[in-house]
């Protein structure tokens, strides 16, 4: 195996994280259906949709929700290819998890070879349920993630009474993730530019641990400096932000439709 494989993989992870952040911001500012909704409305209705996906007990409901998600992707002007790549990146893992259920679940035969039952109806149903449900939940989650700028999401969370201290931490963490990613990325680059030949696995592990440890020490040092900088700007334990959230007619309409659909679906489940 390529000795630098782990480095390439890590750097690729960093790059894709940065890339997705830039793309998210772009997408969140295009004019589409979900983008035009208030972030509080989006947070409430999409969490509600994920709960409904969780409660659904028939393939029909899950299939309808899949079509709904696809329609919303189209109406929000998200490129389908990009959405599938982004939202369903975690789906193959679920497919691997669901696969054995096809073969080990006992029940009526569905597919046989030479009279031996390979796949049962129940097995196919079990695997199908899990896959569809995970796909629908991922789509709903990703729809709100892709169409909402991070700051709006935070003000929506604040409106839902998440403590201010948590919001402040979330906001600052998000900002410093990119600084730390940048720092460690530079450390990787520095190592590559001044080394040649192959490193053993244990050398690589030691070097990684040192990189992480000095990043940890840097974070600690930086937190002190950031705190002093905040104090110097008059920080007294609270951060004030401009909050310009206002509900429009379409927000009420969208909430109404979603809640009504939720009630109908839940009624049909527990009838």
């Amino acid at each position: 195996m390529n000795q630098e494989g782990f480095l390439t993989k890590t750097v690729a992870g960093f790059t894709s994280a940065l890339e997705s952040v830039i793309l998210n911001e772009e997408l969140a500012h295009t004019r589409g259906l979900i983008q035009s909704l208030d972030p509080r409305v989006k947070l409430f209705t999409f969490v509600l949709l994920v709960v409904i996906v969780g409660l659904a007990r028939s393939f029909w409901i899950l299939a309808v929700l899949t079509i709904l998600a696809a329609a919303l992707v189209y109406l929000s002007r998200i490129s389908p290819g990009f959405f599938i790549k982004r939202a369903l990146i975690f789906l193959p893992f679920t497919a691997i998890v669901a696969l054995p259920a096809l073969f080990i679940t006992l029940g009526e035969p569905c597919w046989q070879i030479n009279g031996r039952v390979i796949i049962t109806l129940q097995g196919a149903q079990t695997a199908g349920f899990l896959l569809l449900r995970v796909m629908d939940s991922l789509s709903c989650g990703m729809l709100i993630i892709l169409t909402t700028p991070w700051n709006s999401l935070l003000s929506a969370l604040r409106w839902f009474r998440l403590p201010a201290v948590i919001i402040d931490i979330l906001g600052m963490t998000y900002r410093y993730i990119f600084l730390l990613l940048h720092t460690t990325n530079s450390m990787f680059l520095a190592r590559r530019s001044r080394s040649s030949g192959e490193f053993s696995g244990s050398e690589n592990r030691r070097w990684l641990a040192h990189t992480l440890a000095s990043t940890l020490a840097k974070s600690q040092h930086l937190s002190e400096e950031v705190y002093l900088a905040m104090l110097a700007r008059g920080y007294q334990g609270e951060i004030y932000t401009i909050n310009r959230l206002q509900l429009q007619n379409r927000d009420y309409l969208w909430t109404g439709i979603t809640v009504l659909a939720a009630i109908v679906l839940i009624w049909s489940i527990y009838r």
Partner: protein
Amino acid sequence: MHIPDGYLSPATCGVMYAASAPFWILAVNRVRQVLTHRTVPVLALFSAFIFVLMMFNIPLPGGTTGHAVGGTLLAIVLGPWAAVLGISVALGIQALFFGDGGLITFGANCFNMAVVLPFVGYFIYKMISANSEATSLRRLVGAAVGSYCGIVAAALIAAIEFGIQPALFQAIDGTPLYAPYSLNVAIPTMAIGHMSIAGPVEAIVTGGIFAYLQRTHSSLIKADAPVKKEGKIWLLWGGLAVLALATPIGLLASGTAWGEWGADELKGLGLDFIPQGIEKLTGWWPAPLPDYGFPRMGAVIGYILSAFIGIILIGFIIWLSGRWLSRRNSARQETKTGTMN
């Protein structure tokens, strides 16, 4: 170990939010007491660090790579309560911004990785390191073993969460609605995966970072942080009591836990003979509460009573060993042991 939405029923997710909530509330209060106005910048930077650490690919012997969580490390540097918040924030950003881990499973993911992991890891680190010097080898071993146990414990709790799904939630025809594997598949699978890959990754990363900190930033390792009495600790005991009350859920599982068959059950598994060793050893220890039950008592009550007795016994053993460790340490003045490697 990030459980996505769809694996757990909404009811389970609700219970897991409720289980995590007291820890979050206590953590916010405790951390603000200790850090006061520093809370926001300190936690923000350390959460960002944990997020970055989770993105690192760690090469393992044999050519594979894996990711670490770093929860025990954070608990060692900042204390377990700050670790609860730090990891929760990192997981929150992963879920809310990158779609890694679900929205309604967030409570469960936090309970596993931000509560169980740092507390188990920190507790074992404390047990092993006791009052030794910040730079001692003993502390390094404590950090590595603690982080290993922390992640394995978190994985086991996650396995229980999705292992109870098929028994509790089925369609009318018996088809499992969520994660389809029962406890006797989920627990061994998660245990093997985490004991052989994720656990070693966590131990290597935590141990490596810890060793480096010992050499260069030993001030970050608080060797003699005084253990404060916690006023609201009853909340946690309350949580434990709730879990003990929930033990009868185990009765739902049909059959015996994997690998825990009795001699008579081995026959039922299709084994034609009983291995001699098992036959010989069966019954040599007359258990006071066979099958977690009491004579002349319902199975449910028996299970709950057994859980409480188990908790008290384990608590007593831990308390005894803690006393023994701290006595041994105060009796023997440890000289500084170099750990340069």
